[in-house]
């Protein structure tokens, strides 16, 4: 009797272990050829692992994140971008100010002078990479905007001079130039906190053009000089940036199924029986019934739907939902990159005029707060990411998948004034041409090496690269 009981226990253990081992084999992706497993896929769908990137990424939150924050303390201006240490903390707090502003009815219009004065006092200036429709922006905060500003790109917050529990929000209409002041019921001590952060990080000296009076020639006895748009922040200290080396992870893509399998899965390709071939330049092409996914040997991912009605479906319940769904998709693909943590991307195409489910979106990469400018001849794309959406589905998608790491050399780019000195003299003295922006960006210099340069944008929309580089030892401290 005792032996019979022992046999039963042993049998139960054997049955359980066989079930566990079988399940382990079924649900483990690595045990399957081509990295695809039906059971694993089901498990991922149930647990949400496959959508981890989607779950963590919130397009609503992303829209609210400005491209740059400038903390102004009298004549000191400290700029924060997405790579800055305190950026996320400031953003979270600002979301609170913006949400509260939607509940306020204390709205009034103010003059341009007040906006300029705010930039010279204790205030925080926020700027987005593109113009937003105010109602779309408010919808990301789950609120409704009742003011008169229709499109905006920038706003300022400052404290109430008398009541510390009130914050003033100034919103500038990008089209009409109208400035609206909203008194918000929010503790303004946050501004003092940001100013205290900024005091510890000022190793660059910058001034707005209007502070230096470089925005006009009216009052000058000297006529032949450059004119800079009044709200351009001019860095007057020398800027040192590292060169970057490019790592092309698609170079030997045909031998690296662990790299391309997640990409295929994300683009909804069935990885088990897919048709694929390698082109003469080592680019790998995957073909499905309605589209092709090409991993170019220069590091560019390209998806194209053969049939405009059969792309990758997005949420098409509304235009805003479709935009958000597109941004989520882009973020999901970017999460598959083996990218430098300092690299981030920003939307670069205006979305305020999108009214239907068919639109284009572009995004650019930034590293060391400098944009990476792609040579269209080399990469066949000007932007890091380009998406074409047709009737709520992605029909074309291009993304540069290369990784960028600091190279052993640092470049002294000089100051912004040095850069303007190197601009074509005709541009400087032409009365109808103003400098509308000046920034550093990475430019492809020689095989695999990217060099930082100053770029100047003028009022005619032309952007010119300025070569003022001189190599300095790599042990120089770089921000």
């Amino acid at each position: 009797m005792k032996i019979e009981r022992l046999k039963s226990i042993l049998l139960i253990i054997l049955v359980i272990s066989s079930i566990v081992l079988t399940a382990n084999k079924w649900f483990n992706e690595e045990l399957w050829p081509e990295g695809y497993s039906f059971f694993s896929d089901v498990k991922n769908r149930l647990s949400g692992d496959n959508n981890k990137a989607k779950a963590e990424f919130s397009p609503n939150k992303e829209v609210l994140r400005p491209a740059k924050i400038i903390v102004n303390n009298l004549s000191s201006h400290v700029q924060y971008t997405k790579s800055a240490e305190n950026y996320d903390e400031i953003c979270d707090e600002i979301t609170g100010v913006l949400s509260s502003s939607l509940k306020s009815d204390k709205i009034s219009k103010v003059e341009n002078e007040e906006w300029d004065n705010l930039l010279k006092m204790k205030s925080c200036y926020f700027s987005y990479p593109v113009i937003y429709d105010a109602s779309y922006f408010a919808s990301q905060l789950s609120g409704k905007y009742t003011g008169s500003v229709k499109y905006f790109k920038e706003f300022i917050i400052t404290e109430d001079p008398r009541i510390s529990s009130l914050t003033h929000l100034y919103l500038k209409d990008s089209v009409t130039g109208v400035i609206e002041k909203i008194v918000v019921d929010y503790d303004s001590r946050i501004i003092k906190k940001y100013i205290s952060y900024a005091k510890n990080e000022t190793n660059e000296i910058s001034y707005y053009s209007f502070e230096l009076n470089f925005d006009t020639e009216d009052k000058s006895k000297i006529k032949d000089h450059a004119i800079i748009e009044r709200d351009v922040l001019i860095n007057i200290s020398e800027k040192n940036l590292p060169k970057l080396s490019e790592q092309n992870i698609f170079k030997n893509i045909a031998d690296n199924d662990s790299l391309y399998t997640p990409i295929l899965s994300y683009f909804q390709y069935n990885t088990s029986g897919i048709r694929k071939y390698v082109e003469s330049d080592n680019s790998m092409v995957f073909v499905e019934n309605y589209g092709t996914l090409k991993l170019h040997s220069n590091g560019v991912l390209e998806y194209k739907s053969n049939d405009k009605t059969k792309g990758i479906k997005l949420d098409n319940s509304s235009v805003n939902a479709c935009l958000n769904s597109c941004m989520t998709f882009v973020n999901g693909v970017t999460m598959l990159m083996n990218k430098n943590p300092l690299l981030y991307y920003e939307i670069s195409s205006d979305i305020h005029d999108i009214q239907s489910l068919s639109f284009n979106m572009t995004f650019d990469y930034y590293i060391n707060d400098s944009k990476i400018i792609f040579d269209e001849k080399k990469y066949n794309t000007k932007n890091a990411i380009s998406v074409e959406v047709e009737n709520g589905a992605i029909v074309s998608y291009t993304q540069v998948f290369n990784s960028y790491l600091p190279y052993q050399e640092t470049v002294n780019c000089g100051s912004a004034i040095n850069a303007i000195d190197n601009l074509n003299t005709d541009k400087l003295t032409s009365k109808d041409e103003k400098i509308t922006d000046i920034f550093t960006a990475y430019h492809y210099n020689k095989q695999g090496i990217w060099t930082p340069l100053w770029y100047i944008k003028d009022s005619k929309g032309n952007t010119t690269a300025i070569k003022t580089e001189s190599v300095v030892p790599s042990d120089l401290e770089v921000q």
Partner: protein
Amino acid sequence: MAKLKFLTACVLIIILASMPLMVGATSASSLPAYYSGTVDYLIDIRNPETIVSTTTNRNCVISAVAVKGTKVTLYAYDPATGSYEVLRNSWGGKLESYVGSSGLYVQQITLKDGLNSIMVVANSSTVTYEVVKLEISLLNKGYMENVNGNFKSNGIGVIDIFH
């Protein structure tokens, strides 16, 4: 003998005539308080906007537009010597630079408490130079608090106004 005297006189004249050249080439470290320019078309100071100004900020930016190729040097008045001494950066170098083709000039200086007499010298050649003298007063924190205290009884202080 007369020939020797004539030659000596010629050499002295040449040396005296070339003195401004040497000054122009290197920028003097010290210039007398009465130093003034020979022209008024080389530089146009944009900030501070007036010759006499007051600020509460120790870091002051001097901006200007100037004729391309002009050398701009900054001096500060030293009451101890009674003359203007050239301003230097943290590495000991003179605050002097050439204006490029943009025609723009910017230099940040650190003010001392009270009155700062700054002289901007713009040279285009040895005999062509313009001098602009600025009077910038830095109101220190103690002074501001003192004034603020006097006005506070009226409901709002000077610091609040500046804020």
